[in-house]
């Protein structure tokens, strides 16, 4: 619980030194988002010559805590209770807050998943500090230890740099997919501090009645995303993209106007108010490349832009550019891919012939 008071900064910020990362788990496994944030935290701890402290909360986490070490934490504080089998907002906030008050980190980063954002927002109020949401970049000034957090804004070509100079810890979240997963090294040295948390009966007021795993595609972890924008002109364009996506074992993404039009569900929208993706291949067909779209896919490994406008902003950020009508390009692309697949497989199973 937080009193209705303003945020008061600590008197001596120099006591707040290390970097802390909340190592999100699901069913007692580190999430990919957590691994990415550990990687980012490691970079900042090295830059400031401080320690990276991981916080793990779960119901069976002695191995998970070690994983946090293998990915880069120097010290792992693990809060374990059978009540923590699923994320619960208040008790998780209580434990993360306790870790902050004890370890006094200079920086605290949290994966920007739904549960992570819930947790970070509450914890920021508890510890009376500042939280920057959805950062595309998180870095630290080596000499001052000041966190530099950059997030998209509403401008057409800029992002905002947000700082929290007086309050500690300086907090930030980033969406899954923003940073790379660091290498896992099971030779790394680290300390695990596993704590059994006693939860009294009736103390936790949240009760999870049921859970259903996600069905359907999760575009945030897809290896290939074939995305379409207003350049498609009509909903049928999505069928074409889907055909290409199927050939590449990928999923369909869209720019916001397409989701606004209701041609496909919002869960396919890439960008600032949609999902962040980091696939091996991102094909942008008929998407102009506005910053609010770019923030959701700029970290893709390979970007292909298909656009009738040679000067489209997307073309300047693509590895390969095809200046042509997507209704010419995509069928040709599908045909060529099928041809290759067919050729590889002639002996096994002569695939259905390509269509013109």
């Amino acid at each position, binding site marked *: *619980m*937080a009193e*209705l*008071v*303003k945020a008061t*900064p600590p008197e001596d910020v120099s006591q707040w030194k290390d970097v802390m990362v909340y190592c999100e788990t*699901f069913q007692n496994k580190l999430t990919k988002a957590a691994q990415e944030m550990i990687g980012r935290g490691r970079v900042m701890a090295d830059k400031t010559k401080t320690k990276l402290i991981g916080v793990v909360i779960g119901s069976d986490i002695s191995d998970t805590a070690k994983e946090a070490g293998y990915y880069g934490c120097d010290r792992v504080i693990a809060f374990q209770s059978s009540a923590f089998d699923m994320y619960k907002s*208040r008790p998780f*906030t209580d434990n993360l807050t306790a870790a902050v008050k004890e370890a006094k980190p200079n920086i605290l980063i949290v994966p920007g*998943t*739904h549960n992570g*954002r*819930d947790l970070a*927002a*509450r914890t*920021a*109020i*508890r510890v009376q500090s*500042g939280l920057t*949401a*959805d950062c595309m970049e998180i870095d630290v000034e080596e000499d001052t230890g000041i966190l530099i957090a950059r997030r998209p*804004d*509403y*401008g057409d*070509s*800029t*992002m*905002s*740099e*947000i*700082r*929290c*100079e*007086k*309050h500690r810890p300086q907090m930030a979240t980033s969406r899954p997919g923003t940073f790379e997963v660091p290498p896992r090294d099971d030779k790394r040295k680290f300390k695990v501090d596993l704590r059994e948390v006693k939860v009294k009966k009736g103390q936790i*007021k949240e*009760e*999870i009645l*049921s859970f*259903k*795993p*996600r069905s359907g595609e*999760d575009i*945030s972890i897809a*290896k290939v995303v074939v995305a379409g924008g207003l350049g498609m002109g009509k909903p049928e364009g999505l069928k074409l993209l889907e055909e290409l996506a199927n050939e590449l074992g990928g999923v369909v993404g869209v720019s916001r106007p397409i989701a606004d039009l209701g041609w496909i569900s*919002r869960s396919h929208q890439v960008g*600032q*108010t949609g999902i962040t993706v980091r696939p091996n291949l991102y094909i942008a067909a008929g998407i102009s490349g506005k910053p609010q779209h770019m923030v959701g896919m700029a970290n893709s490994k*390979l970007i292909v832009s298909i656009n009738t406008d040679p000067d489209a902003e997307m073309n*300047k*950020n693509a*590895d390969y*550019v*095809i200046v*042509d009508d997507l209704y010419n*390009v995509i069928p040709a692309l599908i045909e*060529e*891919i099928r041809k290759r*697949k067919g050729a590889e*497989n002639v002996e096994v199973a002569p695939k259905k012939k390509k269509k013109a």
Partner: protein
Amino acid sequence: MALELVVITKIVPDGSEVFIDPVNLTLNRSLATNVINPADENALELALQVKARYGGRITVLSMTPPFAIPYLEECVGRGADRAILLSDKAVAGSDTYPTSLAIAAAIKHIGKVDIVFAGEKTSDSSTGHVGPGVAEFLDAELASYVSSVEYDDGYVIATREFEEGTEVVRIPTPAVVTVLTNSNNPRKASLRRKIDAIRQGVIVWDLKEVGLPPDAVGLRNSPTIVKRMIPFPRRDRKGEKITTDNIAKLVDVFEQNKLIKGGE
């Protein structure tokens, strides 16, 4: 016993007509038309459904300058019972800490509240901090990223969505729920109700009314500051031109990158 329901809402600039003032680093609203934050429309709709099934009173609360009044009247026109505008010059420039603080103070001033409905996030700065922040200041339970709720004798049963799946969680009131964008179809205001809403007017409170000193809020009492704006980062990509006639070249690249697996 009627439920006391509150919907918090921010009036945001509409879609693409948004500008940031390069001098003050604040949103320049004068150039854009405004709308009720999209997720808040879903939050209001959910509150209206709860009221229809379980009874109660809905107060819409917004901390904004008075330009928001017509939008709050729209909310009343859709079925809310009243609207409160918390308007005070001192809150200008507040980040999500003092914003949550002031909204929580206003909710406390309303009295005993059962459920607070917020949008999951706004469409402009979209931090998603304010719902959880208000829960924290009210010492209320929280269910975030919710698509539907039921009420059962002092408990809220909420369906939450997150990356791994969907859960149903039960929390006692007082509770804050943050509602997912597009999770329902918000009704429109009827003309008759809209006229009534305009007649009824909006209640205006300032900080003093809700018991907060001016030095608890505003830019100077915000932990975060927007330091500067910097150009959007561009990775160096070579932008190699390929033509449709020569599409095989692109497929070569796909093959080199192992993006094409043999036919299944």
